[in-house]
């Protein structure tokens, strides 16, 4: 190589070698060995492949280059790694060592240090590859999560912190009938109206520290509510909500999971309807058995026959008890048991339960003792019948399993720490102690389980369904307490249970005293003689028809029978009746519908009194009845005494009218009515006071003011209606005035109104005129009296 070339190459730090066709080094640049794998071996005469092993294998190429078949060959980026140093990279280029424009047998091998370039390339490639792999992983990860979210069977919605919907999955799209694009940006409350109240709940709960997992975001789980779809449909759903807290604000918000409850609701509804139907279908024939048995007992029977009939009755009653237990249990299980909250005397409730069971106890010569505790609050707000139910159950059990000795009932109470919005400020503990057979300790855990009794021989010996205790457990738990037992075999057991309740300071009139006792009035034909009524019985079940007819006959009534609502209407159109006994569940036209028609067709003045006969003990139904226009109801199965009581109320209209027809100079005012009965005003005050959110004084004053404002108008309208001979409106006005006056304690005025009403019905023109005058006069008294009272408050 000439000097110029050598210089140029040297300046550019390009090394070279010249080898012959046997790879032996003929010429080499000074620093080429630095670029070799084995610098020692790079010497003249040595095989170049020892120092440059990358040349092994390109023999064919080499001969092609020598023969001129190929121009050159390049190997770029060959790395050399020295132990302690960074690698160096070289580019190798092999060409024919052309001399004088002729191909020679020599190879020119040019070697360039390209470390800098390769190092750069390396970092570039490294970055690109890593980014690529990262992107892959992220994409796969995102896909994975997206798939999970999308394929969830439940609807999922993700919102921002402010509640705007960001994403929804496919199930949510189907449920809510929105495309993702349509719903994004809308507020979650457009879908879940009640959501905001629950969000507060989550915030309140804040961060929960758990020992295992550290701080976790709390969940609101399975809240039942409804959601709105695009087309405005309302779907019952259960929703769960949790907060998403990541560091990046864009990825924060809330996750909602909605579960469609329609099917569950339908199932629940079906179950409820089934329950209601069973309630009727089972109770009805049982009622017939008991009823018939009762009627039979009231007839002349031989001793033996009486025994037989008593057995039938007792079996029927036992059956009824079992059915009621099962229905109760089922209601509680499905969460459908409704609790009433009424103030009552605690001691009365306990004494009621005891008095019911005294006969049983006396039979077994057992003593029932109640340890009265003066420290226990007198009046509490709770469900008296359910509390009584638990007590009866436990005391009855105690009696059942005790042969000698006594049963003691005691009560204690303590104040509670109230949390949040709770109102129940006391915990009341009851203890029922007996000296009976006791319970073996290894059986105690089975006691409160459904359908189990201590052992099967108990069932044979003592009877029972095994539901009693579990119902007691459920009821006491629903009332905020718990139940447990301490027992020793052959010594006795003490059952404890607690409830939580609100203690009220108002003293109530002893309600239980006014409960009607077993009537000792004889049931015979004199009842009808004293109170003649035209009765229409609307009942589909033939046995019930027979039974009720017999009951009525026993009282001396002859009732007409209609098999359903339609027949009832037909009968009523033919002639008027005083009383309609209406069964509420009948084919063709049921009781409710029939009542509605009756109320529509006949005015209240001429309408018969409607008494519903219902097997339903459901609270809501009773409220519905009263709303419809039903005057009274009898719960099946009912006894003849109850029927009698209800019929006893059905004589006012006839009686009053007949009274008036008998004597022309009635002096209703001889009765001792006061102008204003203060007790009535006090009653209004008490009711308002009892209702927490109302200022009682204000309420009372308002009520008085309203009355004073409206009544003058009423009186004007009354006169107007009379002069127009509009008896229908007149009657309605007078009726309304009577009722409002009575409420305000204007009992004299109310009485006058009632008398006027009767006169209107009977269209006694002269008397009406006189009466209206009396009304107006009395009102003046009422007005001044009320103004006086008003000042006092």
């Amino acid at each position, binding site marked *: 190589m000439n000097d110029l070339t050598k210089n140029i190459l040297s300046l550019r730090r390009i090394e070279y070698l010249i080898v012959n066709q046997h790879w032996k080094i003929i010429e080499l640049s000074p620093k080429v060995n630095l670029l070799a794998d084995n610098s020692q071996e790079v010497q003249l005469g040595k095989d170049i492949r020892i120092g440059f*092993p*990358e040349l*092994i*294998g*390109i*023999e*064919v*190429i080499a001969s092609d280059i020598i023969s001129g078949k190929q121009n050159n*060959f*390049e*190997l*770029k*980026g*060959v*790395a050399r*790694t020295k132990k302690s140093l960074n*690698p160096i*990279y070289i580019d190798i280029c092999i060409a024919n060592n052309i001399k004088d424009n002729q191909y020679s047998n020599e190879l020119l091998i040019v070697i360039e240090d390209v470390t800098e370039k*390769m190092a750069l*390339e*390396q970092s570039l*490639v*490294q970055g*690109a*590859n*890593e980014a*690529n*792999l990262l992107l*892959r992983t992220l994409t796969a990860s995102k896909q994975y999560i997206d798939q999970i979210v999308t394929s969830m069977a439940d609807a999922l919605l993700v919102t921002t912190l402010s509640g705007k919907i960001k994403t929804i999955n496919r199930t949510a799209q189907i449920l809510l009938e929105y495309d993702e694009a349509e719903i994004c940006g809308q507020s979650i409350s457009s879908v879940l109206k009640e959501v905001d109240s629950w969000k507060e709940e989550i915030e309140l709960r804040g961060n929960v520290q758990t020992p295992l997992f550290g701080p976790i975001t709390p969940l609101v789980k399975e809240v039942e509510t409804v959601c709105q779809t695009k087309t405005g449909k309302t779907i019952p759903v259960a929703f769960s909500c949790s907060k998403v807290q990541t560091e990046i604000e864009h990825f924060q918000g809330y996750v909602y999971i909605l579960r469609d409850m329609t099917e569950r609701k339908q199932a629940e509804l079906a179950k409820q309807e089934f329950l209601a139907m069973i309630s009727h279908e089972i109770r009805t024939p049982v009622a017939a058995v008991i009823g018939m048995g009762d009627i039979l007992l009231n007839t002349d029977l031989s001793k033996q026959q009486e025994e037989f009939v008593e057995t039938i009755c007792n079996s029927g009653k036992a059956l009824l008890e079992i059915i009621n237990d099962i229905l109760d249990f089922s209601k509680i299980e499905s969460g459908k048991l409704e609790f009433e909250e009424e103030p009552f005397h605690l001691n009365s409730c306990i004494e009621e339960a005891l008095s019911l069971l005294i006969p049983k106890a006396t039979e077994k010569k057992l003593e029932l003792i109640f340890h009265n505790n003066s420290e226990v609050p007198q009046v509490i707000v709770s469900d008296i019948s359910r509390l009584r139910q638990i007590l009866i159950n436990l005391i009855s059990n105690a009696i059942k399993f005790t042969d000698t000795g006594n049963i003691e009932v005691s009560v204690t109470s303590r104040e509670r720490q109230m949390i949040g919005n709770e109102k129940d400020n006391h915990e009341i503990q009851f203890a029922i102690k007996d000296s009976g057979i006791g319970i073996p300790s290894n059986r105690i855990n089975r006691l409160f389980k459904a359908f189990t009794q201590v052992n099967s021989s108990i069932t044979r010996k003592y009877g029972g369904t095994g539901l009693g205790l579990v119902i007691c457990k459920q009821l006491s738990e629903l009332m905020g307490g718990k139940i447990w037992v301490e027992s020793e075999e052959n010594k006795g057991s003490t059952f404890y249970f607690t409830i939580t309740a609100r203690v009220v300071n108002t003293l109530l009139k002893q309600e239980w005293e006014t409960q009607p006792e077993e009537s000792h009035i004889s049931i015979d034909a004199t009842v009808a003689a004293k109170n003649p009524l035209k009765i229409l019985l609307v009942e589909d079940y033939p046995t019930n028809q027979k039974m009720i007819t017999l009951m009525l006959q026993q009282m001396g009534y002859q009732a007409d029978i209609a098999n359903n609502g339609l027949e009832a209407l037909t009968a009523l159109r033919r002639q008027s009746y005083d009383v309609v006994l209406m069964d509420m569940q009948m084919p063709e036209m049921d009781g409710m519908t029939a009542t509605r028609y009756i109320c529509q067709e006949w005015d209240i003045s001429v309408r018969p009194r409607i008494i519903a006969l219902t097997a339903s003990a459901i609270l809501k139904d009773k409220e519905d009845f009263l709303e419809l226009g039903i005057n009274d109801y009898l719960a099946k199965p009912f006894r003849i005494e109850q029927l009698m009581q209800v019929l006893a109320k059905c004589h006012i209209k006839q009686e009053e009218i007949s009274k008036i027809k008998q004597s022309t100079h009635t002096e209703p005012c001889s009765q001792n009515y006061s102008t204003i009965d203060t007790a009535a005003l006090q009653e209004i005050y008490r009711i308002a006071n009892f209702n927490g959110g109302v200022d009682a004084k204000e309420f009372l004053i308002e009520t008085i003011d309203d009355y004073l404002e409206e009544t003058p108008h009423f009186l004007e309208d009354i006169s107007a209606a009379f002069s127009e001979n509009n008896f229908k409106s007149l009657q309605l006005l007078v009726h309304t005035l009577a009722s409002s006056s009575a409420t305000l304690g204007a009992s004299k005025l109310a009485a006058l109104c009632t008398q006027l009403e009767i006169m209107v019905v009977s269209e006694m023109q002269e008397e009406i005129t006189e009466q209206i005058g009396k009304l107006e006069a009395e009102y003046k008294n009422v007005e001044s009296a009320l103004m006086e009272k008003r000042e006092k408050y």
Partner: protein
Amino acid sequence: MSTISKKICLIGDFGVGKTSLIRRFVDRQFSDKYLSTVGVKISRKSLEIIDSQAGKNLILQLLIWDIEGSTKFKGVSASYFQGAKGAIIVGDVTRPESLENISEHIQAFTKVNPQGKTVIALNKSDLIDAEYLEKYRHIYSFSDNKSFVSTYASSAKTGKNVDEIFQSLANSMI
């Protein structure tokens, strides 16, 4: 014993584990750290081969060419393949695209070396279930290909099948 030197190449997409396989085979070491190879790095390792024909043992020195991984933007320069008697085509079982490109790599190699032998390494097998490995082994067995020797599920991390790959390729090149 006589010694022969033969050149083999490791070919495959970027990041499939070519360098790691060599490191495991030559240095008996493994590192999780990813360092992209650029250009080519040549290592040497000697193996003992049983020459059934000659009835004796040979020592074969493998010249192992660790070639930079191919990417979307840059294929592998065919000059690297020149004079190689065998190749190990490597794919990453956790990246399906790298497996799909295996046949391409085989083609590129055999174009330069029609008589060359190929062994396929389905690498990173420690990351997936055994049931999938069998499936992949079946799919990526090119038994109709003249150059094809065998397919292995390998793991440079655990060392699984690494020696076997090089050994079987070496055996096939005799």
